[in-house]
């Protein structure tokens, strides 16, 4: 079947008559383009004074992000500066992109805490499941999008970096309407 179809298609293509209209290009001196240029500039100046313009003066003017925007992560910290994470291992388990690396351990006060906590933001698909699964509300995706860096390595956020982030955390659902009803 595929072979037959192919042959049919070839036959149709060769039957089709191609019609080409040849346009004559004006010789130099035959036209000045002045009228066309003025028409174009008139449109440009009209937009300059148009009150309905859509251009935003980024970065002076920041965009208004939704509270449910899911951007790069941040780690919540206790008042004494320790990360809230207890290294339970649920976020690396639930992460569909496998971008979280976690090594648990015990700190000097006998608390379970992450010795290593790294998120590869390049691998991350920003699904927000890490935030949803976290039993102690430590890891959050954030309302933030300006992530440019000079090297690729800088996109693997370690624990200190995650704790430094100060952008707002994402609301995964509206607290007044948790079921989106």
């Amino acid at each position: 079947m595929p072979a037959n179809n192919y042959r049919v298609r070839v036959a149709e293509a060769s039957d089709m008559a191609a019609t080409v209209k040849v346009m004559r290009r004006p010789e130099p001196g035959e036209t000045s383009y002045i009228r066309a240029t003025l028409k174009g500039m008139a449109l440009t100046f009209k937009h300059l004074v148009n009150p309905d313009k859509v251009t935003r003066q980024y970065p002076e003017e920041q965009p208004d992000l939704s509270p449910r925007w899911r951007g790069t992560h941040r780690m919540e910290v206790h008042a004494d500066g320790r990360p809230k994470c207890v290294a339970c291992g649920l976020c690396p388990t639930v992460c569909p992109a496998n971008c979280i690396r976690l090594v648990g351990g015990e700190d000097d006060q006998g608390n379970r805490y992450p010795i290593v906590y790294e998120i590869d933001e390049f691998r991350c698909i920003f699904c927000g499941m890490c935030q949803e699964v976290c039993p102690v509300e430590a890891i959050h995706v954030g309302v933030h999008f300006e992530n440019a860096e000079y090297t690729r390595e800088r996109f693997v956020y370690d624990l200190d970096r995650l704790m430094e982030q100060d952008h707002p955390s994402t609301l995964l659902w509206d607290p007044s309407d948790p079921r989106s009803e």
Partner: protein
Amino acid sequence: MAENSQTPESVTLTIDGREVSVPKGTTILQAAEALGNRIPHYCYHPGLSAPAQCRLCLVEVEGAPKLQPSCITEVQDGQVVLTESEEATRQRTGVLEFYLANHPLDCPICDQSGECKLQDYVHAEGRKHGRSREPKRVFGRDDFGGDILFYGDRCVMCTRCVRFMNEMAQDPRLTVVERGNRSIIDTFFEEGVEGSPYAGNIVDICPVGALVSKDFLHKARAWDLDHKPTICPNCSQGCNIDFHVRDNRVQRLKPRANLEVNQYWMCDYGRHRYEWMNREDRIESPVVNRSGRPVPSDWSETLEALHGRLQEGVRPVKAVASPFASNEDLAALRHLVDALGGGEIVYRLPRADREIPLPGFPRLSRRRDLAPNGRGAEILGMERVGDDEGAGGLDELAHYTGTLVVLGDELADLEPDFGEQAALYIYVGSHPSPAASQADYRLPATTFAEQEGTFTNHEGRVQRFWPGLQAPGLARPAWLVLGALAARMTGGPVPTSAAEAFVQAAELAPEFQGLTYESIGTRGAIINEPVALPGA
């Protein structure tokens, strides 16, 4: 109804509408298990006495005035048992609610999370929300000595640990102190379980995260671990164990039930000796010594060159084997040595000064021979040399001028000039060693943890183990390397699987004859005896 149910010792009863025939004296819980119906329980453990105190295994028995604890109620003919009836389910939900009244629900930081019976049962049948408003009682954490930590808040007071120490270890170090709501497991004085050689088992039998291992504390989550069946390599008892593996590293060892070898237990000596399997200094590719310069090579080239060298004719052979190698590896070495004209094979075996038996099950003991396969080496006609440290005995071989083959032994006590005068020195091993530096051919072998094979334990039980880790680089099982060489020399078949290598081993030793991987199975088989029946 099955025919055998008519025999006098057999009792037939109905559990949840299904008929089952079991021997007289069986409990309802065991009968239900035979049907694949696991009745929730904490205090009952097949290896210990049953005090029927957790009240979780209560089931409805028709005709009985109230619910019966299935772990101690013996089956009777014509009994009708309902484990899922409304009354039984309501009762379990209620008991679980009591358990949760004081449980801290700290699953995120609890090492048992993922393999916790309280988690499982509450998830299956517990209430969705607790109703208790009273503050929870708090005990905090207690160091029980040795490898054991105790989190009293998580405890469900099943007393399995107390009973293990009393009945199995017969070394009562734990007890229940206080009464009622305040009762808790505790140690006598400050002694704890320190020094008790089987205390690690109380971590295994703890159904919740109350008793945890310091060695494993916060190391890995239970659901991340692959369980790989294997045999403990640390003494000649041959306990059946599981590797718990994550990231291609053994994270801990856990006993696997085999009623004829180790029941449900293993000793702490074996339990904590696994780090060597994770060693990262490994021989990763064949290395050929070309006029004093070690040159990494690939397998086909190396074996070709080695075969050519062997065909040129060899001087008399002497070999060093290791009791840590499998039966298949040792037999392949024997095949090769025989193909080269025969010669003496020696092995060195570290030996402890005493056995450490488990008093409640004396068949299980930390044996004196601290290697898994000394018996296998003996069966294959090898000779033990050296002292009880597993050292010495090779001084003569160090300056041997014939052909020298070393399998597995790391030669840690020997000088770098070992084998310098040998006409041909072949070293097959896993780890680089100074004494292997003079080897003409240094061939990378897998450790037992990375290959399939069998060990023969002290009583002559051949037991299979399975690969738990991935071998690094070009490392291959020694039976494959040596078997391929021997086959080339003799023109025989090359073993393509561990099962075939075992068949070739059986050709060498009458003790192994009649055994195959199928007949050995997962329970092991005694040499030269019909297959042992699976554990009752």
